[in-house]
């Protein structure tokens, strides 16, 4: 039931959320990351996400599995889009569902924080000025997924 995808087309957030639903749960949480119209004070028109795609799928699957352990259910879905996105387009959607809202919040937050720490994805910001630049981020630690817990 765990879903972890890297996709090139638009993300349907409602569909990601619906995919985790369960009548035995009472709390579902959807995180949606979108492309902002500014970065570091500069107007931005869009972002190109590059990825080490094969590895990104594996890392995303590992992160989702770790979140499922926090959650106590397998009802986790995470989808990251790559390619060139315009302002306001969805870059990542994370849905979790659980009988317990505390665990839902913790697991959802875990997924986005781990994505930022270790998903091999990069972004090039396209500024309204016509310039563009790769955005510096986190340096992943040389450890297996299990050690990230």
């Amino acid at each position, binding site marked *: 039931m765990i879903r972890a995808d890297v996709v090139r087309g638009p993300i349907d957030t409602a569909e990601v959320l619906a995919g985790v639903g369960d009548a035995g749960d009472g709390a579902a949480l959807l995180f949606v*990351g979108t492309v902002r119209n500014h970065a570091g004070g500069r107007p931005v028109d869009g972002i190109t*996400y*590059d*990825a*080490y795609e*094969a*590895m*990104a799928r*594996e890392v995303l699957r590992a992160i989702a599995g770790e979140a499922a352990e926090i959650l106590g259910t397998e009802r986790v879905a995470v989808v*990251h889009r790559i390619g060139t996105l315009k302002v306001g387009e969805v*870059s*990542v959607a994370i849905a979790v569902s659980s009988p317990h809202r505390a665990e839902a919040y913790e697991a959802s937050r875990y997924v*986005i924080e781990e*994505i*930022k*720490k*270790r*998903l*091999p*994805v*990069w*972004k*090039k910001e396209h500024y309204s000025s016509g310039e563009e630049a*790769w*955005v*510096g*981020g*986190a*340096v*992943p*630690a*040389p*450890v*297996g997924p299990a050690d990230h817990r």
Partner: protein
Amino acid sequence: MALAVRTLFFAAYRDLVRTSELPLELADGATVADLVAELRSRGGPFAHLPPDPAVAVNRVYASASQPLGEGDEVALIPPVAGG
């Protein structure tokens, strides 16, 4: 004995060295650190690669001391920025 590996470059590193993939021959027993040193010693843009970048071996993050094996897929990982 020699060791053949594939080296992959992404994002800022790919733009720097102007290739996404480079086959390399290393001495038997070579580590991740040896591979990075070998790359940097090629000079030109390669000399501008950092001395201790994040590296994934066969799609798993590896330490600098990890030994490489025949056919390994070794990726130099710039600071990540997903989400």
